[in-house]
C-alpha cells in the first residue's frame, strides 16, 4: 500500500515539474531575449536604416528590415486571403453531401500546413527561376503566400463552421443563392477573419526559411516589387553572425523587436478568439 502511494506521489511530483518546465520555457526565452536585447535598444533601431552595411556597420538601425517584413507579411496575407476565403467558403457551403471529399480536402490543407517553410522556400525559388525572377520583394511575397494559404484556409474553415446552421438555412429559405448566403456568413464571421489575418501575419513575419532564397537582402527600403527586401528574422540571423560586438548587439535588439511584435499579434488574436466564442455561446 505504501509503495503504491509513494509511486503516486513520485509521479505527481514529476508532473508538476514537467508542467513548470513547459510553462516556464516561454518565460525563459522571452526573458533571455529581453535581458540581452534591452541594453541595445535605441530609438535609432526603429527609425534608421543601417549605416555602413548591415554586417559590419556600427551605425543606424534596422528600419529597412522592419519595413521589408511588413511588406512581405502584409502582401502575403492579402494575397493569401484572396485565395483562402473562396476556398473556405467552397469547402463549407458548396460541398453539401460530399462530406468525404470535403474532409479529405481539409486533410490536404492540414498536410500542407505541416510542410516546412524551407520546402516552400525551395519551391518558391523554383518558381522564380522558371519565370526568370530575381530575389525580390515579389519573390518573397509569393513564397510566403504559399506558406500562409493552408493556415488561412484552416483557420477560416474552423470559423465558418461555428456559424449556426440556422443562419444559413434562414438566408437560403428566403430565396438567396448560395453566394448571397455566403455573403451573410462572411459578415457574421468578421472577427474570425481578423483573427485569421493576425495569425497569418504573425507566422509570415517570423519566417526565415521561405524568404531566404526568395526575398534576398538589402540595406535599403524597397521601393518596387522587383527590388530585394530585407526581412526582420533574416536581419537577426545575419547580425548575429557578425564578428563585431555592436552588430551582434543590434541583432539582440532586433530579436527583441520581433519578439514584441509577434507577442502583441498573438495576444490580440487570442483575445479576439475568446471574444468571438463568448459572443457565440
Amino acid at each position, binding site marked *: 500500500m505504501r509503495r503504491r502511494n509513494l509511486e*503516486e506521489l513520485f*509521479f*505527481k511530483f514529476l*508532473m*508538476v*515539474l*514537467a*508542467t513548470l518546465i*513547459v*510553462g516556464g*520555457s*516561454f*518565460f*525563459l*526565452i*522571452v526573458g533571455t*531575449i529581453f535581458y*540581452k536585447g534591452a541594453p541595445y535598444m535605441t530609438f535609432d533601431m526603429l527609425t534608421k536604416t543601417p549605416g555602413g552595411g548591415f554586417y559590419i556597420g556600427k551605425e543606424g538601425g534596422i528600419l529597412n528590415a522592419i519595413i521589408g517584413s511588413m511588406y512581405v507579411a502584409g502582401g502575403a496575407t492579402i494575397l493569401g486571403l484572396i485565395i483562402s476565403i*473562396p*476556398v473556405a467558403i*467552397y469547402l463549407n457551403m458548396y460541398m453539401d453531401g460530399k462530406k468525404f471529399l470535403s*474532409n479529405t*480536402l481539409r*486533410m*490536404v*490543407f*492540414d*498536410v*500542407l500546413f*505541416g*510542410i*516546412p517553410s*524551407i*520546402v516552400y522556400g*525551395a*519551391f518558391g525559388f*523554383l518558381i522564380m527561376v522558371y519565370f526568370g525572377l530575381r530575389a525580390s520583394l515579389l519573390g518573397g511575397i509569393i513564397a510566403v503566400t*504559399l506558406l500562409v*494559404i493552408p493556415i488561412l*484556409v484552416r483557420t477560416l474553415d474552423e470559423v465558418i463552421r461555428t456559424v449556426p446552421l440556422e443562419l444559413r438555412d434562414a438566408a437560403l429559405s428566403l430565396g438567396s*443563392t*448560395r453566394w448571397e448566403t455566403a455573403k451573410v456568413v462572411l459578415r457574421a464571421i468578421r472577427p474570425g477573419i481578423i483573427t485569421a489575418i493576425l495569425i497569418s501575419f504573425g507566422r509570415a*513575419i*517570423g*519566417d*526565415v*526559411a521561405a524568404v*531566404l*532564397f526568395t526575398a534576398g537582402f538589402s540595406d535599403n527600403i524597397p521601393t518596387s516589387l522587383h527590388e530585394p527586401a530585407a526581412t526582420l*528574422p*533574416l536581419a537577426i*540571423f545575419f547580425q*548575429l553572425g557578425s564578428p563585431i560586438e555592436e552588430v551582434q548587439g543590434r541583432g539582440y535588439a532586433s*530579436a527583441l523587436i*520581433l519578439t514584441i511584435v*509577434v*507577442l502583441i*499579434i*498573438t495576444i490580440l488574436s*487570442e483575445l479576439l478568439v475568446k471574444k468571438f466564442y463568448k459572443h457565440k455561446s
Partner: protein
Amino acid sequence: MIGYVILSQSGQPINYYIQLMQRIRLLKDKIISKLMLLFTILSVSLVFIIGIGLYYKSIPVLQNSTWGHLLTSSVWKPLKGLFGFYPYIMGTLWVTGIAIIIALPLCVLTSLYIVEYAHSRVRRILMPFVNLLSGIPPVIFGVWGVLFIIPLIQDHIAPHFVEFSTGYSVLAGGIVLAVMIFPLIVSILNEVLRTMPQELKDASLALGATKWETIKKVILRKALPGIIAATVLAISRAFGETIAVLMVCGNNAVVPHSVFDAGYPLPALIANNYGDMMSIPLYDSALMFAALLLFIIILLFNIISRIILSRLERKMAA
C-alpha cells in the same frame, strides 16, 4: 428604379424583370462557384505541384547517381559531382531523436497533470502561454539557443562528460527543437486526454486503483494512438525546422557519434548553400533533392498522423 416603376405599371414586363434578375443572380452564383472551385483545386494541387517540381529539378542528380547511393554515401564533393547525404540524414535523425526524447515525456506528464490532476484554473493559466510559445518565430528560438543553451552546454553540461565542447552540438539543436515542439504535442495530447471517457476512469478507480495506476494502465493505453499521432506530427515538424537548428548545431558534415558532436541537418544544408548552388553544376539539383527528401518524409508522416487523429475524432464522436 425608374425603369422598375415604369415596367411595373403594365403587369407583364415585371415578370420579365424578375425573371431576368433571377437569371442574373443564378448565373452569378454559378460563375462564383466555378471560380471558388478553381481556387480550391489550385491550392489543393499545391501538394502535387511542389512534389513534381522538386522531383523534376532532382532528375539531373538522380541520373548521375542512384537513390541508394545518394542516401548512403558520406562523400560530399560538389565540385566533383559527388553528393552523399548520409551525414546530413544522420544529423537530422540525431537532432530530431534528441528533441523527441526530451519533449515527449515532459509533454505527456504536463498534459496528464493539467487534464487529470490540476484545477481547471491551471489549464486556463498555462494554455495561453503554451499558445504564445507556439507563436514565437523560429529565429528567436535560435537566438535563445545561442545565448542560453550553448553557454549552458559548454560550461555546465559538457565538462562532466567530454574534454572539450564548443556547445554547438546536436544536443543544443535537440533542446531548442524540443522546446519548439512543446506547444504542438501538449495541445494535441490535451485534446486527446480530455476525450477519454469518464466511465473508464471510474471503473478503474472503483476497483481500488490509485489515480496513477488508472493513468498508467487505463488512460495511457487508451490514449496511445493519440500519443503516437502527436509524436509523429512532432517528428515531422522537427524534421523540417531550419533556422533555429542551423544556428546551434555547429553545421559540421560528419556523422555525429555523441550528443556533444556537431551535426549538419538537411534543412540547414539547403539554407546554407543556396548562395553557391547556381554556380556549380548539379549542386542546385542536389539541394532540390534534399528538399524533395524532406518533402516526401514529412508528407508521409503528416498523412499518417492525420489519419490516426481523424479516426480518433470519429471514434470519440460516435
